[in-house]
C-alpha cells in the first residue's frame, strides 16, 4: 500500500519537534537523531496502522517513545538505567547546542526520573494535553498529572525558580542561579 502524500508531509512536518523530543529524552543530539530516524522508518513501514483523522504527531511520539525504551531494553539495561545513559551522554557531550542555558536545563532534566522527565516534556514543552500524554505513555491521566507536578517542583528547586519571579528573572541572572544550584 502506497504511503499518501498527506502522511509523508505529516512526517516531514513533525521532524523538528520529534528531534526536540528525542533530544530532551536522551540529552545528546547524535543519538537523538538516530532515534528520530528509526521512528520515521518505523512509522513509514506501519503507515497502514495509522488511523487518518487522528493526531499523527501523537502517534509518532508514541512510536519514538516505545522505540527509545525498547532500545534501552535491548541493550540489556533496565528502563531505570535510562537515567544512567543520560548522565553518561551529558558527560561526553555537554552543551552541544551552544546555548549556555541548554546545558543547565539538560543537567536539571537529568536529575529527574525518566518517567517524570518524559511526562513533563510532553505536557510542558511538546504541548500535549494531560490526556494525550497519558495515551502516549500508556498510563492513567492522574499518573501523568502527578509526574508532571513532581517534575515541576524538582526543576523549580534545581533551577532556583521561586514564586517572586512574577515575570521571570532576566535570563542571565536565571542562568547564574541555576548554575549555582547545580554546582554547589
Amino acid at each position, binding site marked *: 500500500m502506497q504511503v499518501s502524500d498527506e502522511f*509523508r508531509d505529516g512526517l516531514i512536518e513533525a521532524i523538528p519537534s520529534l528531534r526536540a523530543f528525542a533530544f530532551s529524552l536522551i540529552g545528546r543530539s547524535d543519538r537523538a537523531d538516530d532515534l528520530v*530516524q528509526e521512528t520515521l522508518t518505523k512509522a513509514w513501514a506501519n503507515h497502514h496502522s495509522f488511523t487518518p483523522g487522528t493526531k499523527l504527531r501523537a502517534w509518532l511520539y508514541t512510536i519514538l517513545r516505545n522505540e527509545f525504551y525498547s532500545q534501552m531494553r535491548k541493550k540489556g539495561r533496565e528502563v531505570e538505567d535510562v537515567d544512567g545513559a543520560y548522565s553518561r551522554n551529558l558527560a561526553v557531550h555537554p552543551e552541544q*547546542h551552544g546555548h549556555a542555558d*541548554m546545558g543547565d536545563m539538560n543537567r536539571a532534566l537529568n536529575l529527574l526520573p525518566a518517567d517524570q522527565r518524559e511526562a513533563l516534556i510532553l505536557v510542558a514543552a511538546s504541548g500535549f494535553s494531560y490526556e494525550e500524554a497519558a495515551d502516549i505513555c500508556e498510563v492513567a491521566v492522574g499518573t501523568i498529572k502527578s509526574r508532571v507536578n513532581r517534575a515541576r517542583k524538582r526543576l523549580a528547586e534545581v533551577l532556583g525558580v521561586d514564586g517572586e*519571579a512574577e515575570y521571570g528573572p532576566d535570563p542571565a541572572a536565571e542562568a547564574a542561579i541555576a548554575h549555582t544550584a547545580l554546582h554547589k
Partner: protein
Amino acid sequence: MPKETRDSTGKMNVASDADQSAGRPRSLDKSVQSAIGARLRAYYDEVAREAVPDRFVELLKQLEQKDSGGEGRD
C-alpha cells in the same frame, strides 16, 4: 481542563493547569509554573528550530523509492 494549543514546531501556549484546581494545595505557584514552562519551551524550541539535517531528507527519499520500487520487505 488544560486547553491544548500548539503549532507545528511543538510550541505551546500554556493554559491554566489542572494542578491549580482545589484539593492540590501543594501545587506550585502559578508564576513558578509559567517560569519553568517558559524555560522548558525555550530549551525544546532551540532544538526544534534547527534546520532539519540532510539525513532526514535522504531518508524520506529512500523510503519513497523503496515504496514505488515494489515489494521491498525486510
